[in-house]
């Protein structure tokens, strides 16, 4: 446990408990939640972007760079969601419940990212699962309940597989600590027994990440969830509990060596299938949120494909894509929530010409859509480019072509959607949609700013990530 980052875990936890006692007025609950998250965000961003760090182009990163960037992503998305929901959730709902859940979720995610031990990581992931379970069925409607049930019962086998993996790990390696395991992995060709444990761990985290054969819960959970919750979930929760762990495993165990060849092949294969399935399934979707869910699956496919490859460049691409993914999906889901609130429906066929009634939402979601599809100056393009390059260097040319092709497919698909929803001719539902108040636009604007900045200042980001990856995968 990196004690220096422990603070990021305990503070939200304590503020979550405090909020429960502020039953009387919701205003105070808003303030406590937003302030604590904002303070965390400022702190972590100072830790990463402090001048002497930037001057040495991130040479002296205090802790493990990877978890630093993950904590940044967590606090960023959480802060945006809480700011958004402070305006979104009406007084009637039990708002402080929502905030305490959110803050506990943040604590759990920081736990996952900070832990140096598989079993601790599993406990935090379990805590995160329960919190997001509760948030999904926050609204007392059938959709929420169904989403929550599917989420819980379908990710259950995943956690059970992780537990079996951990027990085998105890048997073969005797320890769960990442550093010990890394030394075992470096000390010689991985014994096939360890690989059994790694296989179980991988399948468990794949289920939690929502890779194709196991993605069904993710779609229904995102669609059924209460709208700001789906931003929280889609943005960061499933990424942390699923994709982060897979990247961690790949960084520790040299998966691409002969003995473990099968696992890395399996990961790449599943990643590729996910990209294909997500991109194609998203095409005919009528519901905006469901379409976003499918496209987020496709993006997670990229991450798994890259981490399956295992080379430092690929891992770098995966990490950067994970961060970008968080920003895109956060913006898009928040926008879908605001569209749902103001236009009344997320059925894409009914929505049209939102551009003149909701300009801010439209333009931020356009930036996010283009970045997700991989338009050059924006950040999404860089991460996908790095992934494709890594694939190319390692000789996995087929996968490289595949990912390039499906980048095109998603781009075409998003272009059509943008035209239909934002710029089409007037539609009944588009009429009465009016722009969101400032509070709810601030997070989305902040996220799209970050998308643009990350795109433009890619060299700095690259050096930071390269530092993080090389230090971990030595």
């Amino acid at each position, binding site marked *: *446990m990196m004690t220096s980052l*422990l603070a990021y*875990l*305990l503070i939200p*936890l304590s503020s*979550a*408990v405090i909020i*429960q006692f502020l039953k009387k007025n919701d205003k105070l609950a808003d303030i406590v939640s937003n302030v604590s998250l904002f303070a965390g965000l400022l702190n972590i961003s100072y830790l990463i972007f402090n001048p002497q760090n930037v001057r040495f182009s991130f040479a002296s990163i205090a802790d493990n760079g990877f978890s630093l960037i993950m904590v940044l992503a967590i606090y960023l998305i959480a802060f945006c969601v809480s700011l958004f929901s402070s305006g979104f959730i009406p007084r*009637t*709902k*039990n708002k402080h*419940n*929502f905030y*305490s*859940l959110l803050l*506990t*979720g943040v*604590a*759990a995610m920081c*736990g996952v990212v900070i*832990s*140096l*031990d598989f*079993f*601790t990581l599993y*406990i*935090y992931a*379990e*805590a*995160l699962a*329960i*919190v997001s*379970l*509760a*948030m999904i*069925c*926050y609204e*007392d409607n059938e959709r929420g309940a169904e989403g929550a049930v599917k989420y819980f019962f379908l990710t259950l086998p995943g956690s059970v597989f992780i537990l079996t993996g951990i027990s*085998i790990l105890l*048997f*073969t*390696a*005797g320890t769960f600590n990442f550093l010990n395991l890394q030394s075992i992995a470096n000390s010689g060709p991985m*014994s*096939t*027994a360890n690989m*059994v444990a790694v296989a179980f761990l991988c399948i468990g985290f794949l289920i939690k990440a929502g890779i194709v054969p196991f993605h069904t819960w993710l779609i229904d959970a995102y669609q059924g969830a209460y709208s700001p919750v789906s931003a929280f979930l889609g943005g960061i929760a499933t990424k942390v509990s699923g994709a982060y762990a897979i990247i961690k495993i790949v960084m520790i165990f040299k998966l691409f060596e002969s003995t473990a060849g099968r696992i890395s092949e399996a990961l790449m294969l599943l990643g590729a299938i996910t990209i294909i399935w997500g991109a194609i399934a998203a095409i005919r979707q009528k519901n905006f949120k469901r379409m976003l869910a499918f496209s987020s699956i496709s993006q997670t496919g990229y991450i798994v494909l890259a981490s399956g490859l295992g080379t430092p460049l690929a891992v770098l691409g995966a990490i950067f894509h994970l961060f970008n993914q968080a920003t895109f999906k956060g913006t898009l889901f928040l926008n879908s929530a605001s569209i749902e609130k103001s236009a009344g429906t997320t059925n894409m066929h009914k929505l049209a010409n939102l551009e003149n009634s909701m300009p801010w939402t439209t333009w931020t979601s356009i930036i996010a859509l283009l970045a997700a599809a991989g338009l050059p100056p924006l950040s999404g393009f860089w991460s996908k480019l790095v992934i494709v390059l890594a694939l190319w260097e390692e000789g996995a040319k087929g996968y490289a072509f595949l990912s390039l092709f499906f980048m095109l497919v998603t781009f075409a698909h998003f272009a059509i959607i943008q035209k239909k929803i934002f710029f089409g001719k007037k539609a009944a539902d588009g009429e009465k949609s009016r722009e969101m108040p400032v509070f709810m636009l601030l997070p989305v604007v902040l996220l799209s700013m970050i998308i643009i900045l990350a795109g433009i200042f890619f060299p700095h980001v690259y050096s930071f990530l390269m530092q993080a990856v090389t230090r971990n995968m030595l």
Partner: protein
Amino acid sequence: MTYHLILFAVLLIFIMASVMLQNLLYSAIMLALGSVTVSLIMFTFSAPWAGVFELSVCAALLPVLVIGTIKLIDAGGRQDLDEGNEDNCGSLGFNIQPVENRIKFRILPLVVSLIAVLGWIFFIPFFEALSKYPYMNSLNRDLGKIIWAGRSQDLIAQITILTAIAMAMKSILHFSGGKNKESKE
């Protein structure tokens, strides 16, 4: 050594019974008996603390909770459901499941025996190979030191997960003006 296998056999019987029984109440009770046999197995593995925990928590707390909820749902049975869903699943498990899936449960022993035979052919060599690479741990520190020194992170994790479950239950069971106040216990 022999009663070790007997215990496993008893455990298998209890679990199969709990799965096959249609009545939820009886299956919950069977499960409790199953967890008792699990704790006995743990004692045979000379892992007393785990056995005690298992006995007190899994065998005692969980059945209580489960039976409580079953009773709750049965008592608050919502015959008044107007949707006219075809299988009136308000009352106790008798007709909670429609008839057709009884067969799936009845063939469980057959399936389990099939898996047992297959396992004997495939799983045993697999585990044989697996067991050739044990990591023999030399020092056997006592439980207290391990939990406090070695697994201190887990304690913080447990705190988080407890707060998580507390917040979750509070928000899940917060029925906005629900008909009957939730009372699980």
